[in-house]
């Protein structure tokens, strides 16, 4: 049966708490002097979200790039201050990014058209809204291609499951079970990223 293997081997459903622990472990290794593999793995997990955040908040590719670079210079410097009991690695990284985004926004030569980011996190402030969208995108990107594909076809709302089955060339029953596993994996990935599911 087409797609059956993907649905049986559901690697995306590793417990979110375990993966959160992995990120905290990476930060601990960076703090202990691992400037190579651990820092690079951490960087790759956040590069897309930080760059997207910079583009949306600052409206300028070169400022977005600066945001990524300066955030990671500071993540590297401050890794020793990270306390897993006080919050997730995502919160640690994005708290640093928020301060840098404010500084970049205020730099006289920046002159962004976007509104000034708030210095403190608050529910519903522009940066929080942007972060939710980026976190959802990041969670989607972390799924297996088959899971991501079926969810992307589903949330557009213009196709029903029978049409999705036709589009993918798999039986309707496969689409149903695949969508179910994909949405469960998505929920786990969203929790890992710090947004409720």
């Amino acid at each position, binding site marked *: 049966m087409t797609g059956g293997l993907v649905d049986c081997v559901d690697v995306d459903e590793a417990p979110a708490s375990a993966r959160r622990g992995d990120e905290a472990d990476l930060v601990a290794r960076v703090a202990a002097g691992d400037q190579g593999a651990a820092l690079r793995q951490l960087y790759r997990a956040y590069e897309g979200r930080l760059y997207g955040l910079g583009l949306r908040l600052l409206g300028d590719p070169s400022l977005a790039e600066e945001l990524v670079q300066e955030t990671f210079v500071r993540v590297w410097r401050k890794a020793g201050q990270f306390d897993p009991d006080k919050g997730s690695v995502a919160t640690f990284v994005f708290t640093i990014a928020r301060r840098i985004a404010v*500084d970049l926004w205020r730099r006289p030569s920046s002159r962004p058209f976007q509104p000034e980011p708030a210095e403190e996190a608050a529910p519903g402030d522009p940066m929080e809204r942007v972060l939710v969208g980026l976190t959802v995108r990041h969670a*989607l990107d972390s799924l297996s291609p088959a899971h991501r594909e079926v969810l992307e076809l589903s949330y557009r709302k213009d196709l029903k499951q029978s049409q999705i089955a036709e589009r993918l060339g798999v039986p309707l029953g496969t689409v149903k079970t695949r969508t179910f596993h994909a949405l469960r994996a998505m929920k786990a990935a969203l929790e890992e990223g710090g947004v409720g599911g």
Partner: protein
Amino acid sequence: MAEHEHAQPDVAGYVLGVLEPDEAAAFAAHIEGCRACRDEVADLAGAGELLARAAPAVDVPAGLEARTFAAIAAADYGPTPARRRRWDGARRLVAAAAAVVLVGVGITVVRQATEPEAAVAQVIELEAPGGGPASAVAHVRRTPTGGVIEMEVEGLAPPPPGSVFECWLVAASGDSIDRPNRVSVGTFTVDQDGRATVRWDFSADTTRFPRMGVTIEPDDGNPVHTSQRVLAAKTLL
């Protein structure tokens, strides 16, 4: 309809609104009497709603990772003494790796074996922030009291009458019009071809002021930043 021991796959289609209308109506009736499916709908509803808020996929510029690790390697030059000791062992390896990575993005770290600290020359490329032909290459050498910057500029249109170019080292954070957090390195102008070669000593701590840039400033002797950037370093000092 009977209760299920485990939630059925249609839960996902129902939450996402992709069941056929008759299937959706039947499933809505089913969850009235089936606790397993009803609980699963409640459990997955939030993820279903969040999906619709997914940001578009972002294309990260090529080489950003290499440039970021170059900035980190560059920032590794002047940490606090404790940190410096801690990193010393790893740094020799990193420097070798960095030299390979950095060539591709325009920074070369030249490390001479005889004078491990003072002989390090960091090459910083500067470009026009808004695009354009202006560019510069600066060689930065640290000394015990600060450092020396040698910079070659080209393609920079001469400044308007009564103004000069000013080179700055800017704080990593907290630099604004109201509360500038930058130090002036020196002023210069360019020849008719838009070229200049300059050399300055500086005493600023480049770990506090790691960003380098050039602005146009009124030539009134007032060392306060007022104007537009014309060159900005691609990487941190």
